[in-house]
């Protein structure tokens, strides 16, 4: 096996830095999932987002009843609090990546958070994506896919994002009375994006049947997730040759289906392929994916087995970096390489956070608390490489060393940041810059440093 500690730190972790020894072998990367499962740097609890949503709803109701009421200050304060919390969450997510001993766990949290892409589209629930990931993804990264699937699909943010809370069984109590019907959005994405994959063998009929089965899943701002029998479609629903449900409908029927879905071979192949594509290559070795798929199925969806299969396979360690760091990963790797202290990354004023993190990330293609679609950010290397995004990466990379002021010698830094694998061109550029800060900036802005 071609295992290189420096390459592995870049490919599977947060990159290299003077304060972090790269993993000595694949086992160390795997072990780090346990030791890094409880990261420092807290994220705003989902409950806080819910509380704010209730307050916002109350303010709006007051305004509706009394248009003259002066609530601008209250609404503004609430919005500001939400925004500040989102900035703090961004800083925490960045710090978790930048300061983890290895960072594989933080990278996987991002991977699964993107796999179960969901966000609040304005309205009373705002800027809540990090809180959602913290509640649904983070606890299950080292658990089973089944548990993660349950947590994500039943979460209010997902239900709202994919319109499940608007879907009403036509023959349910509410459906019959109010002539409301199904919304297939979540059902379709659950099969296409979250489990079986776009290549999965399912039909429109399966989607429709699943939409019927999923009715009843909803939420309210007081309790959060709720199963509402009055909108649940009653009766037996047959999908993939198995019968689910009954009269009346229970949440357990939905969970039973989700659990079955989690262990289907197509789900295993989809997840294995996506994970290998994310970490290794746009076109991963089919033997690697097959090995991961088999391990996942053998272990009944135990994600630790899936990761082990990835890390232990030689094809995961072929030399060369074929993927591109996402904007936040680039930032974290830069902070790590330059040993920027956590205090300089967290607790920033709104102005500084906005200028230094939020706006640059937005310009690089990772807007605050947003995903571009239910499919999340694209996972091919070229996804992040657009002229505008590269200009934004360059701006940020050239600015970071200026901001720090005191920077190392670029000629030494180029080896440190690239683990001794820097090309002659990059060494030349680092040494040929007019100033130290520009030399550092050029290393950070280089395609080589953007690769992982």
């Amino acid at each position: 096996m071609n295992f290189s500690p420096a390459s592995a730190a870049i490919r599977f972790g947060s990159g290299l830095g003077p304060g972090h020894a790269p993993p000595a072998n694949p086992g160390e990367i795997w072990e780090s999932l346990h030791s890094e499962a409880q990261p420092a740097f807290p994220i705003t609890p989902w409950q806080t987002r819910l509380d704010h949503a209730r307050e916002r709803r109350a303010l709006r109701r007051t305004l509706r009843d009394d248009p003259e009421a002066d609530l601008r200050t209250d609404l503004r304060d609430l919005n500001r609090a939400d925004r500040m919390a989102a900035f703090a969450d961004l800083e925490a997510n960045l710090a978790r990546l930048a300061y983890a001993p290895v960072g594989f766990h933080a990278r996987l949290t991002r991977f699964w958070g993107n796999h179960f892409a969901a966000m609040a589209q304005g309205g009373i629930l705002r800027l809540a994506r990090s809180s959602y990931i913290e509640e649904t993804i983070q606890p299950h990264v080292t658990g089973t896919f089944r548990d993660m699937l349950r947590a994500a699909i039943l979460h209010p943010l997902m239900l709202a994002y994919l319109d499940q809370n608007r879907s009403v069984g036509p023959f349910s109590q509410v459906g019959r009375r109010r002539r409301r019907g199904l919304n297939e959005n979540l059902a379709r994405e659950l099969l296409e994006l979250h489990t079986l994959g776009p290549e999965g063998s399912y039909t429109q009929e399966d989607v429709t049947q699943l939409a019927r089965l999923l009715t009843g899943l909803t939420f309210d701002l007081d309790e959060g997730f709720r199963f509402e029998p009055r909108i649940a479609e009653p009766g037996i629903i047959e999908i993939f040759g198995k019968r689910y449900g009954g009269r009346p409908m229970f949440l357990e029927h939905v969970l039973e289906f989700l659990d079955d879905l989690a262990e289907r071979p197509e789900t295993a192949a989809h997840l294995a392929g996506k994970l290998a594509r994310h970490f290794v290559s746009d076109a991963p070795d089919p033997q690697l994916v097959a090995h991961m798929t088999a391990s996942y199925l053998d272990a009944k969806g135990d994600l630790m087995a899936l990761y082990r299969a990835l890390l232990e396979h030689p094809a995961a360690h072929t030399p060369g970096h074929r993927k591109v760091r996402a904007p936040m990963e680039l930032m974290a790797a830069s902070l790590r390489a330059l040993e920027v202290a956590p205090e300089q990354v967290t607790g920033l004023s709104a102005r500084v956070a906005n200028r230094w993190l939020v706006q640059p990330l937005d310009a690089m293609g990772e807007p605050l608390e947003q995903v571009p679609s239910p499919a999340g950010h694209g996972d091919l290397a070229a996804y992040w490489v657009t002229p505008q995004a590269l200009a934004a990466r360059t701006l940020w990379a050239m600015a970071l060393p200026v901001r720090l002021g005191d920077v190392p010698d670029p000629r030494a830094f180029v080896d440190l940041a690239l683990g001794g694998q820097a090309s002659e061109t990059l060494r030349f550029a680092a040494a040929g810059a007019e100033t130290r800060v520009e030399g550092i900036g050029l290393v950070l802005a280089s395609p080589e440093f953007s690769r992982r």
Partner: protein
Amino acid sequence: MRRQRPAITEAHQPLSRRGFLGQSLALGCSLAAAPLVTPIALAGAPGENRLVVIILRGAMDGLDLLRPLGDPFLPELRPSLSDEGVGLDGHFALHPVLEGLLPLWQAGELAFVPATSTPYRDRRSHFDGQDHLEAGTAGALPPALARDGWLNRLLTLLPGVEGRTAFAVGRTRMLILEGEAPITQWTPGTELALSPQSQLLLSYLFEADPLFAEAGQTALKMSGPSGTGLVAQDAEGLAHFVAEQMQGATRIASFSLTGWDTHQAQARALPPALTQLQAALLGLRARLGPLWAQTTVMAMTEFGRTVRENGTGGTDHGTGGALLLAGGAIKGGRIIGGWPGLAENALYAGRDLMPLRDIRAYAGWALRDMFGLEASAIAATVFPGLDMEANPGLLL
């Protein structure tokens, strides 16, 4: 000698919202605004004389700034960089884009030392060269954490020095003003200036990766001087800002200008940097008004460039180079310190202009005459171990 980091404080609130600040705040709305700046450091000192030190980072080509058109070897050595100029004394001519400086020359407010350098030799690294220039020491540099700058050591000799509110526009730390004496730095908003050298190097880097090549070149075009993304450094605004502070209690200021590393197509690459330098000088003169008469400006670089043009119309890292002096306080309108000539046997290592005198001696004598110090104190503290030799009489 240990650098006292706490002595440098960051002022987050601008002192004044007039003039340059208003301008920079207006510019400051862009994404690039906050962090993309070079500190200029200012310090308050007693007396009425003003000193501005401009560090030209990247190795300014003195032979192109001040073209020795009278030297018979020039056309052969520099076929594309010797065609014309703004004649000064029959031997030397200013680079054509510096025509705006001619009135200063005529008024005796501009002078050049054409062949000088720091004691740094042979390695020709920008970073080390700049550290030598700013530390003002000879021989091996002290360890990074123990370094301080010669302008800061000057402050320790002056009575009644106070930390001043200081301001920054530019892109680099100013080692020259770091040290035990109190100074202040400030970083106002400005656009990022990606220097021509950085653009060139980045374009090599992007080209080397097929995935990044096309998008990278487009990004650089968007970012170039003519594009909207990364505009040129605002040297004039910087000068205005420095001048405004000098109207108050500030007496010493230092800032950087970049864009001098012209390895390629120098005929095109150097004018933007020269234009910035000219704008800075004219901006200082215009805004200082009557105080210009008490002002000395020194623009210095880490080393000069090869006397021969290279194969790509540029020049490479050299040794001897030019020191530019300006201000109403100087005895200008003249070339100082002699000319070694460009004959093969007159060159340093057969490739570079021979420095005739240590640049620190010029700076040291200027400081002595400006601030009424003993030459021995300069040689003991500001430039330790320097042999000051004769006074070149830079000031009026």
